[in-house]
């Protein structure tokens, strides 16, 4: 379009230039010569005829050739001269007048010629001018002309109509001056074109200007004004001729073009990438500004001697990447394939940055490559990100391998796709090991017992897409199975389809083991609560029972829920139904008090068993408090102490028996200490040595009573024996009575073991025996003297008999002594038992108190036990001391039958209660016997009770036979039962030997002592059919004991 415009422009200019030479050759040259010739003829005529009219010729020529203002001046001058001469003719007369009229006429003629000349001159010009003007007017340009000094001489009417000036007033335009221009030229361009014009006028160079001109409609439009100044022969500027073309469209197109170009270039420069163009041979021909800025050199600087521009471009590429770049580019240039490469490019500051470069060829119609257009952009950050990503991926992989869990993944069909290293390390199985040949999952690491369950769970999970959680035993690399929990969750895509399963296996073997242990312990604990032989119940803060343990339920025969009664609190219902009526009010009161005050309680009461029997229990309750000390619950226990209560009664009974033993005064008993002091003694002993109790209290010593020949033995042997063994074998010795007489005794002693420096001694008075022995000796002596010969005869035999007798005596004594020693040892044992408990408890208490923090609760408990054991020890001691109590010796001749009847009466009630029939047969004519009524009665009752006890367990008829007969010179009493019989007939008479649960083992021992002290015998034999038969004899003629 621009070219078209230019073409029309030059065509117009050519038209103008062709017309100008015609005008110049026709006018000045031939016509001026003719005028000069005519003027010369007129002057010559005027000079010859002496009339001025000849001068008209030159005047006419002047008029002819005068132009513009000169013409006006000529006319004016002629007019003035004519008027002047007319005035002179009027004022002057005569010749002057004639001359003046002549000259006036001359000038009038001259004027006429001037007018004619003007008309005549203009006639041919007008035709030409009209033609020219028509041509000009018809030309599609606005034309103008101006005088050499720049004043407008001509403006075409089209121009005038263009700017909106009246076409019939071209003069106005001719006179268009600066002010006129100012009206139609855009104010911004005015100064510029004035300057231009001035310069053109001054230098006479062609004038060319573009400016905005106001069209008639008031719009400014761009026009191009072009003026030339043709010169005449002398080189003088003839005038200015010009055209003016409306170039508004062109201008707008230009502006648009420029804008587009600027945009394009801005685009190229502003695209945040490097753009470049290469020649088909690879030489760079264009680099975008950004690229130039980046690499710091432009195309121009690339041209270095000896190096192609491509080579210098390659120099900016990282040396490691340059060969690849060169190869790739070379390959692309050769084949015309698209170029793509990533490489590091050196930035102006020397830093290499990653670039991604791409180039494509531009081809002409023949398909030849014209240029390569390339683009490369900075991907440093991307590359870094990629490196970082790769790094983090590597880290992640490391992490997955390093976490102490087994991680695996499987595809949506369950085929394993990945196991982490830990998995392989722990299980020793690789991905291949858990993959079946067909690619599916192989449960090779799962315990065969768990495999089926795991397989089911896995199939279910894969089928439903639900989370898979399973516990099983997993094979370890070492061949052991450990409990493992595996969880797997599916990863889904946006549509919810499963892409992958991810699973984690965690070793929970310790947890499972711990849980199992915990469960077992819990079970144990619950078993404990139910199995401890204690009734446990839980009460609310108001005392309502809420829980019974199994024992209690078994005991009561009902559970806590079955206790309630409508309309009554469960507490009072419990009291009413379960507690003995005599105790319920008391217990209810206690419980209410405890609940009100928060203090625990402990009391004994009777509770009804399921079978309706009330049994004694010891109930205790303690509150459970929360952190604030508020009572949350009450825990109550009750222990069945019915048997203990019975035992307590038994002990009381037994104590009574021991007391009777002491009352019976069979043996002397002394408590002594190692310093030789007699601390206490019973009356039997005091009677033996005839001391008073006051003497004892005053501080009686063995030393005082021991005869000199026994001192040595007493001080050394006995003390030594006691110190070493804790007891002293029974031995015969003598003591001084208070009166100085000697009493032969059999004495045995034993220390209370442990820290105690005390002991107990048992002394039997041997006076009677000694006396009997002495009598026997006397008889023997008499016998010996009277039967000396016989004695002599049977000397050897008698010796043997004597030896035998002696031996048997010794044996008897030894037996007695042994049983005494054992008795003392047993008593010591009775004391040692609580002492051991006290010692152990004290140490435990000390340790509880020494703890940090001290366990006061336990310490208190322990102290409670110490007190209990001390009391128990004290009880044993007091029991022994009770043995010393005196009872009057009442051994009188009495009928045994009466005593037996009395004893039977005493037990009759008990026998009836125990459903035992008493079968008593006593011979009619029994001799009177001297015996201690109380003691023998005790023996009887003891034996009868034993018999009844023995039959407790039998279902048959319970019959107890008592038979009393005189056999020879002894009265034998036999008591037979129908019980299970005696298992250890030899042992039952030993002290503390018992077959009964609650027996102390003293009864039969005491019985035997009593019977033997009466000179009788007590033994047991098997019953005729079954059961046991206890027999004791009492000599019919017993000497009274002095």
């Amino acid at each position: 379009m621009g070219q078209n415009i230019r073409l029309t422009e030059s065509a117009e200019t050519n038209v103008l230039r062709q017309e100008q030479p015609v005008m110049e050759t026709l006018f000045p040259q031939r016509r001026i010569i003719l005028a000069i010739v005519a003027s010369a003829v007129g002057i010559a005529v005027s000079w010859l005829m002496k009339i001025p009219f000849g001068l008209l010729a030159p005047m006419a020529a002047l008029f002819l050739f005068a132009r513009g203002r000169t013409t006006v001046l000529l006319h004016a001058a002629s007019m003035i001269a004519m008027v002047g001469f007319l005035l002179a003719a009027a004022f002057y007369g005569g010749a002057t007048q004639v001359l003046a009229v002549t000259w006036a006429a001359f000038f009038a003629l001259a004027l006429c010629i001037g007018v004619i000349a003007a008309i005549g001159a203009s006639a041919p010009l007008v035709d030409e001018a009209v033609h020219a003007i028509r041509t000009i007017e018809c030309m599609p340009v606005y034309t103008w002309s101006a005088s050499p000094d720049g004043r407008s001489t001509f403006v075409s009417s089209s121009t005038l109509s263009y700017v909106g000036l009246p076409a019939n007033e071209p003069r106005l335009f001719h006179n268009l001056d600066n002010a006129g221009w100012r009206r139609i030229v855009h104010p911004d361009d005015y100064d510029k074109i004035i300057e231009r014009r001035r310069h053109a006028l001054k230098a006479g160079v062609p004038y060319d200007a573009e400016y905005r001109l106001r069209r008639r409609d008031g719009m400014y439009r761009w026009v191009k004004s072009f003026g030339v100044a043709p010169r005449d022969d002398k080189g003088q500027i003839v005038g200015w001729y010009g055209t003016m073309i409306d170039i508004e469209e062109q201008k707008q197109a230009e502006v648009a073009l420029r804008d587009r170009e600027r945009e394009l270039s801005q685009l190229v420069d502003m695209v945040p990438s490097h753009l470049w163009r290469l020649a088909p041979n690879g030489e760079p021909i264009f680099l975008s500004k950004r690229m130039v800025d980046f690499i710091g050199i432009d195309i121009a600087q690339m041209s270095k001697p000896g190096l192609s521009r491509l080579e210098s471009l390659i120099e900016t590429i990282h040396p490691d990447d340059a060969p690849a770049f060169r190869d790739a580019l070379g390959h692309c240039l050769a084949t015309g394939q698209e170029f793509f490469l990533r490489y590091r490019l050196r930035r102006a500051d020397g830093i290499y940055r990653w670039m991604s470069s791409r180039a494509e060829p531009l081809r002409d119609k023949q398909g030849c490559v014209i240029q390569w257009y390339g683009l490369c952009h900075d991907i440093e950050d991307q590359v870094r990100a990629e490196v970082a990503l790769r790094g983090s991926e590597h880290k992640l992989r490391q992490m997955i391998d390093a976490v102490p869990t087994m991680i695996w993944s499987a595809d949506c069909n369950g085929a394993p796709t990945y196991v982490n290293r830990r998995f392989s390390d722990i299980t020793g199985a690789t991905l291949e090991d858990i993959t079946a040949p067909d690619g599916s999952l192989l449960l090779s690491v799962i315990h065969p017992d768990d495999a089926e369950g795991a397989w089911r769970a896995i199939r279910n999970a894969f089928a439903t897409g639900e989370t898979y959680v399973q516990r099983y035993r997993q094979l370890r690399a070492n061949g052991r199975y450990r409990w493992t929990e595996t969880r797997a969750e599916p990863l889904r895509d946006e549509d919810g389809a499963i892409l992958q399963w991810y699973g984690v296996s965690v070793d929970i073997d310790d947890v499972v083991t711990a849980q199992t242990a915990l469960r077992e312990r819990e079970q144990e604990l619950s078993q404990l609560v139910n199995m401890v032989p204690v009734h446990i119940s839980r009460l609310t803060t108001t005392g309502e029972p809420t829980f019974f343990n199994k024992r209690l339920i078994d005991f009561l025969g009902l559970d806590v829920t079955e206790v309630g009664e409508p309309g009554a609190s469960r507490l009072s219902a419990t009291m009413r139904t379960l507690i003995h009526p005599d105790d319920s009010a008391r217990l209810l009161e206690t419980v209410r008090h405890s609940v009100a005050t928060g203090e625990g309680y402990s009391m004994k009461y009777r509770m009804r068993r399921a079978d309706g029997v009330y049994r004694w229990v010891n109930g205790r309750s303690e509150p459970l408090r929360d952190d604030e000390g508020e009572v949350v619950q009450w825990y109550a226990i009750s222990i069945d102490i019915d048997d203990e209560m019975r035992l307590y009664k038994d002990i009381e009974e037994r104590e009574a028996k021991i007391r009777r033993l002491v009352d019976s005064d069979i043996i002397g008993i002394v408590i002594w200490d190692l310093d030789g002091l007699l601390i206490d003694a019973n009356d039997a002993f005091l009677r033996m040595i005839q001391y008073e109790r006051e003497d004892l209290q005053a501080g009686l010593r063995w030393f005082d009573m021991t005869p000199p020949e026994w001192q040595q033995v007493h001080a050394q042997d006995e003390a030594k024996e006691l110190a070493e063994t804790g007891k002293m074998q029974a031995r015969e010795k003598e003591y001084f009575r208070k009166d100085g007489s000697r009493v032969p005794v059999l004495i045995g002693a034993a220390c209370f073991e442990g820290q105690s420096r005390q002991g107990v001694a048992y002394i039997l008075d041997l006076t009677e025996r000694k006396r009997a022995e002495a009598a026997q000796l006397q008889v023997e002596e008499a016998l010996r003297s009277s039967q000396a010969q016989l004695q002599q005869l049977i000397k050897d035999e008698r010796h043997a008999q004597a030896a035998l007798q002696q031996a048997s005596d010794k044996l008897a004594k030894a037996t007695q002594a042994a049983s005494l020693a054992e008795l003392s040892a047993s008593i010591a044992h009775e004391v040692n038992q609580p002492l051991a408990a006290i010692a152990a408890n004290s140490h435990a208490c000390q340790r509880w108190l020494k703890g940090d923090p001290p366990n006061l609760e336990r310490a208190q408990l322990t102290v409670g036990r110490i007190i209990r054991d001390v009391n128990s020890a004290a009880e044993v001691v007091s029991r022994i001391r009770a043995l010393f109590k005196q009872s009057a010796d009442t051994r009188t001749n009495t009928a045994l039958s009466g005593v037996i009847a009395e004893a039977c009466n005493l037990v009759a009630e008990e026998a009836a209660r125990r459903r035992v029939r008493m079968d008593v047969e006593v011979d009619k004519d029994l001799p009177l016997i001297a015996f201690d009524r109380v003691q023998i009665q005790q023996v009887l009752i003891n034996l009868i009770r034993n018999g009844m006890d023995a039959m407790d367990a039998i279902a048959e008829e319970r019959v107890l036979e008592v038979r009393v007969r005189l056999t020879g010179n002894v009265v034998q009493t036999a008591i037979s039962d129908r019980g299970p019989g005696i298992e250890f007939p030899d042992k039952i008479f030993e002290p503390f030997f018992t077959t009964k649960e609650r027996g102390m083992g003293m009864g039969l021992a005491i019985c035997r002592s009593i019977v033997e002290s009466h000179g009788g015998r007590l033994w047991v034999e098997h019953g005729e059919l079954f059961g046991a038969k206890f027999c004791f004899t009492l000599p019919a003629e017993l000497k009274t004991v002095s």
Partner: protein
Amino acid sequence: MTTDDYIVFVVDDDASVREALSELLESHGISAVAYTSAGEYVRADRPDVPATLVLDVELPDINGLDLQKQIADGDHPPIVFITGHGDIPSSVRAIKHGAVDFLPKPFRDDDLMRAVRAGLDQDRKMRLARAEMDALRDRYASLTARERDVLPLVVSGLLNKQAAAELRISEVTLQIHRRNVMKKMAAASLADLVRMAEKLEVPVTHSRRARDRGEL
């Protein structure tokens, strides 16, 4: 169950002594289980941990010393005797049969605790030894019949060639067996294997020297 677990059994017919001993042991941080009689102790289901038995001599059913004799064959814990009236023959008898101590009541807690701890130590060692022996037996049981044939020959000191000839197998086969035996028995060296064989009382049937002599 950890190896730190241990327990003390108390057998005494006297409730207060039982109670007091349990308390004392507990105050030393040792858990105790008490039994009223020897029978109850024998019947009870006892935990399989290092233990000591504190045994009263006088018991209602059978005498403590008799119990010691009865259970002497089994793996029973070391026994500390306590007695109400101890005599020299009983104590000698008890100690002779391997009792840790024989304490007459009442005793000092130091004495009891020392005895109990000694008993626990002894039991731990015994258990360890038993466990080692069991492991050794297990390993021996894992040998094949052939390897069991090879073992005595190897520990008898026969050369591979001799042993192979003895079993009528090639020397290479014997070496394989021998290597398996070493591996299965976890023996570090032949000397180690010989020691194990001694412990297992594997009869040394062949002596190289005897064989040499026989050949001579």
